[in-house]
């Protein structure tokens, strides 16, 4: 290799927050190149993608609405990832939260009563937790890899959703479209800022960030999770229960994903359809990493990735770019982030040697 990696012997605090910045910058550069290749003017395209969506107050409000599920799920996932528990099935847990919470909302019909929304919220959280409990059980009892089990359950959840909206929950007055009826007024999330779509879920996302920070920085539980993730044998030595921490890691991710699900369907969407999630559960994984698994970082990361969704939608309308472009950018962003993260633990020393050649004895290192 023409360079050598030298361990720093610690974590560079500078690079811990610099690497997301570098990654974002690099992604923008690559985006400009991709735009150019596709024959769109790079400057205008970048403007459409990055600046135009938030150029007015309504845009900023929309940013908050889009970021809410990402931040909510991201906070829950980050807690689990720190413990090295890889919940990849947040997408499925989101769907189950939407189903449970939305189910309660649909059952309420046109009734209004102060109990409806809390019941929906609780049901949503429970739905997500129940779906996450399956991989938790399988991992602690049978040692089954949680990445694969939680992921398989995502496919199952999607199929379950389709079944419900084309079958028993289909809106009889919906002209045969696969969708439920709209939620009644008593089952719709209240708007917090009039004139926008900012709903209760946005508030919950902020509360989640605060609670997440508390757990991470101040509690013994947060400490236990970090130890489990960094040194499982040390966790065992300290008497921390790996099984209980694994359950907690998965359930917290499931709960936040489920909450995000019920807020989405009872908030901005207003009904249950097969496409309630443009991949929030997966994007939230990127959000968690971008935010260095830290609740405040997750908040910032959620805003960045929400922007990429809004930008993708605008680009589709204004520039005629296909929707899939958003997925590419998110993937590239994660790649650059992982690459830049190297700098947190290592220094690069250029040795100026041709790759593949070992130095002969006597030459300078």
């Amino acid at each position, binding site marked *: 290799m023409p360079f050598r990696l*030298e361990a720093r*012997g*610690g*974590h560079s605090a500078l690079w811990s927050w610099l690497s997301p910045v570098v990654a974002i910058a690099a992604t923008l550069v690559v985006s400009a190149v991709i735009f150019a290749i596709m024959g769109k003017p790079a400057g205008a395209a970048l403007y459409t993608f990055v600046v135009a969506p938030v150029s007015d107050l309504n845009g900023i409000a929309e940013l908050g609405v889009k970021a809410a599920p990402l931040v909510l799920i991201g906070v829950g996932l980050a807690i689990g990832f720190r413990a090295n528990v890889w919940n990849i099935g947040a997408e499925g847990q989101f769907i189950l939260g939407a189903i449970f919470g939305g189910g309660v909302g649909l059952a309420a019909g046109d009734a209004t009563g102060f109990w409806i929304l809390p019941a929906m919220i609780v049901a949503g959280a429970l739905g997500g937790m129940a779906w996450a409990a399956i991989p938790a059980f399988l991992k602690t009892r049978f040692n089954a890899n949680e990445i694969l089990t939680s992921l398989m359950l995502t496919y199952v959840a999607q199929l379950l959703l389709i079944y419900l909206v084309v079958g028993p929950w289909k809106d009889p007055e919906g002209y045969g479209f696969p969708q439920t009826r709209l939620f009644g007024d008593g089952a719709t999330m209240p708007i917090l800022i009039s004139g926008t779509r900012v709903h209760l879920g946005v508030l919950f996302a902020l509360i989640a960030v605060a609670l997440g920070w508390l757990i991470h920085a*101040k*509690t*013994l*539980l947060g*400490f236990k999770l*970090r*130890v489990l993730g*960094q*040194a499982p*044998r*040390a966790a*065992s*030595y*300290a*008497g*921390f*229960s790996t099984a209980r921490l694994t359950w907690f890691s998965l359930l917290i991710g499931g709960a936040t994903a489920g909450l995000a699900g019920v807020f989405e369907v009872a908030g901005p969407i207003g009904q249950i359809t097969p496409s309630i999630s443009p991949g929030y559960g997966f994007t939230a994984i990127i959000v968690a990493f971008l935010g260095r698994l830290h609740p405040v970082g997750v908040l910032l990361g959620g805003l960045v990735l929400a922007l990429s969704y809004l930008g993708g939608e605008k680009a589709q309308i204004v520039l005629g770019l296909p929707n899939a472009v958003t997925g590419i950018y998110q993937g590239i962003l994660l790649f650059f982030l992982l690459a830049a993260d190297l700098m947190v633990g290592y220094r690069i020393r250029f040795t100026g040697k041709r790759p593949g050649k*070992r*130095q*002969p*004895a*006597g*030459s*300078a*290192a």
Partner: protein
Amino acid sequence: MTQEIGAVTPGKRADAPLLAPALLSLDGIVKRFPMTTANDGVSLAIRPGEIHALLGENGAGKSTLVKIIYGVLHPDAGEIRWQGAPVEIANPAAARALGIGMVFQHFSVFEALTVAENIALGISDPRQRRGLKARIAQVSESYGLKLDPGATVHHLSVGERQRVEIVRCLLQSPKLLIMDEPTSVLTPQEIERLFETLRRLASEGCAILYISHKLEEIRTLCDRATIMRQGKVVAECDPKQETARHLAELMIGMSLRPPYHLHEDAAEAAPARLVVSDLSLATDRAFGVDLKSISFTVAAGEVLGIAGIAGNGQNELMAALSGETPAARAEAITLDGVAAGLLGPAERRQRGACFVPEERHGHGAVKDMSLSENALLSAYRRKGLVRHGLVDMPGTVRFASEVIRGFDVKSDGPAAEARSLSGGNLQRFIVGREILQQPGILVVAQPTWGLDAGAAAAIRQALLDLADQGAAVVVISQDLDELIEVADHIAVIAGGQLSPARPVGEVTVAELGLLMGGVAASRPGGADAVPA
């Protein structure tokens, strides 16, 4: 005759009487790393058929030097000559082509592969890999190193695994065989057998470079010794003409003080603090050892040493004592009269028992966390560092500072990451963290392995001091010398079973060696029987 090289110009070889010309000669080797200069003008000469010791503590630079000889590292300056001609050894394959073989301290064996496959991996020349099984059988027969080429390595004992390493080297007809700390994992009888093999090789003209810090072995086996300290050669001598004490002092650079303790007096009627009774545990690890009916008692003020070669159940015993593996019955382990066999580690600490596991990084400490956080790891209950689920950070930092001060831990303070500490300092921290929790019972495993003499002495003294204050201390160690020094009673663990504990004064090294090798003293032939 010892030559103190420090008094002469560094970098020059002392004049040796002319015998055979040197097989390998190193002249002024320098190797620098970012943090340290590992080799600072090292010169060395080995003659054919000579058993040459390379003596020094951890960090003296022996491993680096040897890696340079084997082509794993390249020197920044200096010359290497092989059979008189200057050479550059680019990589291990080149070293092997010259005729240099190396048996590593931490065996380069592959657990999931067979003996023959393991050996094939160490042979670069495809032609030499033909007919391998037959050649392995022949060499192992002829040198008395019994091996089954088709056996999977993970089933082999540590001594057998070392044989794989040695046979792998022998098959390439080496002219120089480098052995890196070969005896730390062998019983005394296996060590004798190894020495016979090495003497035979030397008589056939193969030179041996024997790296060790075990003074008695070097005095028994080696013709010449080069002593290194802090990257430099400090002396060259004939070890058979030196006392072990003098060699040790050359190695450490200062005179040794024997450890001081009171424990001989504490024999009468002290209350039993740790009672293990009929502890049997099936292992759930892949290559683990079942514990079978282990029983022992440790009284207040007593130090019990548990000797044994690695892989005979020490890890399982440690896990059972610390609570990481629950026992089958609560009464199997009693702490100060309380049946604790089913309690987890945190509960056992609340009952006054503390533990120092064998591995520092990843088990006793988390390397990416600060010393304060590492203090929290085991002390959070006994030191009251958590209230209502919230961590008392200032209290934790205070405790970590106490440990650092009290045990002379060289670090950048409580916020320093554990990985920034040297092995010796981290071990001082871990032992200090446990001792400052004022346990009534302390169990430590391999407390001083890999440590320099200064840190090792400090830790042993700390253990003795704790016992003098009335605690019951158990030391599990592979180092018989260490146990004889600190323990009142000694038992041997072999194959998951524990021999009865005997007072240290009444038992001989030979008896211990037999027990460690799994041979009961009462077999016909007794201590003279040669195990198969």
